[in-house]
Structures are given as structure tokens and as C-alpha cells.
């Protein structure tokens, strides 16, 4: 408990108390500041693209890995884990080396006037890469455990591929999917390393919330820094809350089923 207090609750309290050190007005003002507002917007855009992209990818990968045997399956599983294994800074550097002006595709991109590095597309790409494993990792064991029987049953009953997916596969994985999406979102909004390398720290244009916090902090602007940080902290709390709510709901559903079964047996 002491451990939890020192390492979890105390820092959280410090974030909020520092943010509100000069009163609520100063807190709100630092959030309304244009650069801070731009950072918040950019973070939402990056997460808003990365999370759906990885949702689609995660479901597709889990479905392919869980339901089929194919050549190169173990390679694919390893590749999915790659973003976990590689330092985010290195992932960011890889994008710079690929898309940067001196990079592999740099001259071609420059010739066509496409900006990826030090621009929004680079930030989105880096975020997608770093949050790549979350949904897939959450779903693969679930899909594998459930096997193919229900899908085959749906097919013999005349359901098409999409009908089978939306009516049978998806409902069976929805809690795991939601869980993966929440974790993916938390990471997408909080990502620092990879985004830092590709962003270029252009204030008001390519700064996400974590980058903005760092700059403010380095400039000794503690109230604005902690004000933005408090938003990320709130996001973390919200994530934890939704996560427990999902777990609680899933458990409650199970309990209700069991209670109903017990009741019928007594009757």
C-alpha cells in the first residue's frame, strides 16, 4: 500500500496540485492557449486515425492467425510483436531514414511535394507503428481459444462470410476487442519517443500533447506543463475506469447467467 502510495497516488496528486498551483483561472488559460490547443487537436487526430487503423488490422490479423494455418504464420506473429521489442525512438528513426529528406524515399516524396517527416502524416505513421500490437495481441489468444466450430455452423446454416463475421465472430470477441482498443488509444495519445523523433517539434503544428508538455517543462512553465499533463492523467484514469467497467460488466453478465440457471434448477 505504501509502495502504491509513493509510486502511483503521490505523483498523480503532484500533477494535479502543480497544475492548479496558480488557481483554476490560470489552469484553464493554459489549456486555452493556442499552442496547447493545437497539441490537443493533433493528439486527437493521431489517435483518431491510429486506433481505427489498428482496430481493422488487429481484427484481420487475429482472424487470420486464429482461424487459419498458413505459411509464415509464426513470422507474422513475431512481426506483430516487433513494436514492443523495438525502442520507440528507434522506430521513429526508421521512419526518418525512410521518409526523411536524406532518406530512402525522401527525394521522390520531395519531388512530389509530399511531406511526411516533421508533418502530421509522420506522426500518424509513428503512432500506428507503436500501437500496432495492442488490439492484435489482445484478440489472437481469444480467437484461437474459441476455435472454428461456431463459424462453421453459421456457414452450414447458409450465412455468408460477412454475416458470419458480424453475427458470430464479432459478438464473441467484443469485450476483448474493446479492451484492446482502450489500451491502444491510451498508448496512442501518450506516445512520446517515436513521435518525438518524427515530429520536429514545430509548436502549434507538429507538437502532440506529450511533446508540448516536455517543451513547456523545459522552459520552466510549470503550470501550463502540468495543466496539459493533467489531461493525460485524466485520460489514464478514464482508461482504467472504462477497463474495470468492462471487466465488471462481463463478470456481471456471467453471474446473471449463473443465477438464472440456478433459479431454474430450483424451480
Amino acid at each position, binding site marked *: 500500500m505504501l509502495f502504491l502510495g509513493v509510486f502511483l497516488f503521490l505523483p498523480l496528486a503532484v500533477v494535479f496540485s502543480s497544475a492548479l498551483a496558480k488557481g483554476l483561472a490560470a489552469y484553464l488559460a493554459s489549456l486555452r492557449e493556442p499552442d496547447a490547443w493545437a497539441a490537443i487537436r493533433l493528439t486527437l487526430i493521431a489517435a483518431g486515425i491510429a486506433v481505427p487503423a489498428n482496430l481493422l488490422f488487429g481484427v484481420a490479423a487475429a482472424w487470420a492467425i486464429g482461424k487459419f494455418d498458413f505459411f509464415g504464420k509464426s513470422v507474422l506473429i513475431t512481426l506483430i510483436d516487433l513494436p514492443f521489442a523495438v525502442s520507440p525512438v528507434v522506430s521513429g528513426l526508421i521512419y526518418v531514414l525512410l521518409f526523411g529528406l536524406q532518406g530512402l524515399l525522401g527525394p521522390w516524396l520531395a519531388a512530389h511535394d509530399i511531406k511526411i517527416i516533421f508533418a502530421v502524416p509522420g506522426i500518424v505513421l509513428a503512432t500506428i507503428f507503436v500501437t500496432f500490437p495492442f488490439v492484435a495481441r489482445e484478440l489472437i489468444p481469444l480467437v484461437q481459444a474459441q476455435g472454428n*466450430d*461456431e463459424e*462453421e*455452423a*453459421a*456457414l*452450414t*446454416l*447458409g*450465412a*455468408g462470410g460477412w*454475416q458470419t463475421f458480424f*453475427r*458470430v465472430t464479432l*459478438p*464473441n470477441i467484443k469485450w476483448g476487442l474493446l479492451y484492446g482498443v482502450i489500451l491502444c488509444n491510451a498508448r496512442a495519445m501518450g506516445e512520446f519517443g517515436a513521435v518525438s523523433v518524427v515530429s520536429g517539434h514545430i509548436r502549434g503544428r507538429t507538437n502532440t500533447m506529450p511533446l508540448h508538455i516536455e517543451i513547456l517543462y523545459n522552459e520552466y512553465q510549470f503550470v501550463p506543463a502540468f495543466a496539459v499533463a493533467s489531461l493525460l492523467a485524466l485520460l489514464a484514469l478514464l482508461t482504467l475506469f472504462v477497463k474495470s467497467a468492462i471487466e465488471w460488466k462481463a463478470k456481471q453478465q456471467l453471474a446473471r*447467467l449463473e443465477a*438464472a*440457471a440456478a433459479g*431454474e434448477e430450483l424451480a
Partner: protein
Amino acid sequence: MSIEAIGITKRFGHFAALDNVDLTIPSGELVALLGPSGSGKTTLLRIIAGLEFADSGTIRFNGSDITEQTAGERRVGFVFQHYALFRHMTVFENIAFGLRVRPRKVRPPKKTIHSKVYDLLRLIQLENLAHRYPSQLSGGQRQRVALARALAVEPSVLLLDEPFGALDAKVRLELRRWLRQLHDEIHITSVFVTHDQEEALEVADRVVVMNQGRIEQVGSPDEVYNHPATPFVYRFLGNVNLFHGRIDEGHALLHNTAVQGKPPADNQSTLVYVRPHSLEIRRQPNGETHFRATIKHINAAGPLVKVEAVTEWGGPVHVEMSQERFRDLQLTNNESVFITPRDVKVFDGHSSD
């Protein structure tokens, strides 16, 4: 609807699950695919269903080639060993599924679906459980729901993969009798897979005995049990004593005892099969052919008394007799007795597998 499988071959890597199998199932019959695990029976069923596709060969329903059709297009009802009920749907929704996923043009109206599902619920005697989830049902109830779900789409054939395999012994017995009755009512061509010879012999009109990717014999329960075509069929359909014998001048000799039963050819060595209940134990020889044996173990629990003995040439022999006969004989362990084979089956010595 009749089912024909012609020249079906299926390999998994180097393992031949089915090796050039031909099978014809007449319309309206209830057929059992019987065999040990790895005999290819489930693979054959899944190929008929369209859940698996053969490497070569043709499947025909009512004479028309449907080899390339998917499971949905074939309109088969498939019942899985572990039920495969949709766990997030109620019993009602499970049964209605096949009707609800139809394209809008051929989808029956809600009212029709409702009354049809309730008809099926009455058929499986589970009307009052329509709003339960599969997790709230017993194994036997789940399997009946799975059957109703398969029947809801009015399938052309009904295919069941080890339908009673996951149930306990008593429920299994009840459910297979119920399936037999059901089939007598609705006469849909049905094929079920089982490794339980008793189940196949009791339920099916016709039994297909499979082994190592091939069909050993097809026939009525009476035919396969009383006139087995191969040693495998004989062994698989019940307990059996196997003796090495030889053929001498047209007679099968078991050790030095001549036994009845026609040998297939004048062959020096042969295998002689006798069911445990076709051996008669006597205290005294009575002039009939016999051999000597010493009793080693007696198990008197159950409808038949099972006796283990050692023959005069040192091999084991199993004998079954009625409780009544056992009481008359008053057998004890280590007693020396005479055994007379009543009904033996002689196969070629080289065709042992």
C-alpha cells in the same frame, strides 16, 4: 436425398485421411460411419458437408454433382460434436439463425420464423427454455438445440459428427433412441459418425465400417455383425478371441483341435476368431471338439459373467456366459475346464491387419 461419394481421396501432409473411398447412401436412410479415431470417418462427413474439400473425387446429391459447392449452397444440416451453439444467442435465436440470415427476398416473415422455431422447440421438447443461453443448458439439451438449429433450414441431408460423444453414458443412450425415433418421423437422409459400435448397431439402418482411410464393409447392423467381411470388422464390432491356427485338408485346425467354419483357401496358417459368448465352458468333455484351459479370473458383475482363462497352449482366452449358466457350473479360479467353440470365423492368415 441420396448421397454419393465417388473416388474421394484426402491427404493431410503425408497422411492419407481418405484413400479412394466410394460410398452410396440411399435417400431417407440413417447411416452410421463407424471406425476408430484416424479412420477418416469425420473427414468423409465433413467432405460430404462441404466443410472440407477432397483432393480428388466427386460428391453427388440426388445424382447432381455438388463437389464445388460450399456448405451453405449444399443445404446440409450439420451437428457438431461439441454443439457449436452460438454462445451469445438464446436458444430461440440459435434456432432462428439459419432463417434470419437468408437474403431478404427469401427470408420468411417474423411471424413465420417465430412459429417455425416453436414447432422445432416442441419437437425437441424444450419449449420452456427458449430464452435460455447455451451455457445454461445441460449437454443433452444443447445437443437437441443444435439439432433443431440444423433442421430449421430444412436441410436436404442431416450430418452429425459424433453427436453423442461428449455426453455421459445415460444421456447418450436416451438421446440416441430419441434420434432414431425422430428419424422415423421425418425420414431425412442422415449420416452420423461414431466410434461406438453399440451406438452404430443400435441406431443405424446401415453401418459403414471404416479403417485407415478405407471402407471395410457396408451393410445392415445384422450383416456387419454376423457376417463381417474382414478381420478388422469382426474385431471392431465386439470383443473377440484371436487364435493362430492352420488349415489342413480343408479343415481349420486350432492348435490340434478342428473347428467348424469354412477357411477361404487351403492355406498353411490362418487366423481363427471367436466371440467370447461363442465359447462354451464344460467340466467334462462331451464328445464335441474342445480344448483345455485353466481359469484365471472371474468377473461376475453385469448381465454376463466374464471369465479369463489360459489355454493348454498358453494363450489367453476370454469367455462370456449368462449368470444362470455360471451358477450351474460353479466355476472357481485355477480350475481346469474344457472349452468348446460354438461359432468361429476363419480368415486368411495373411490378411491380418
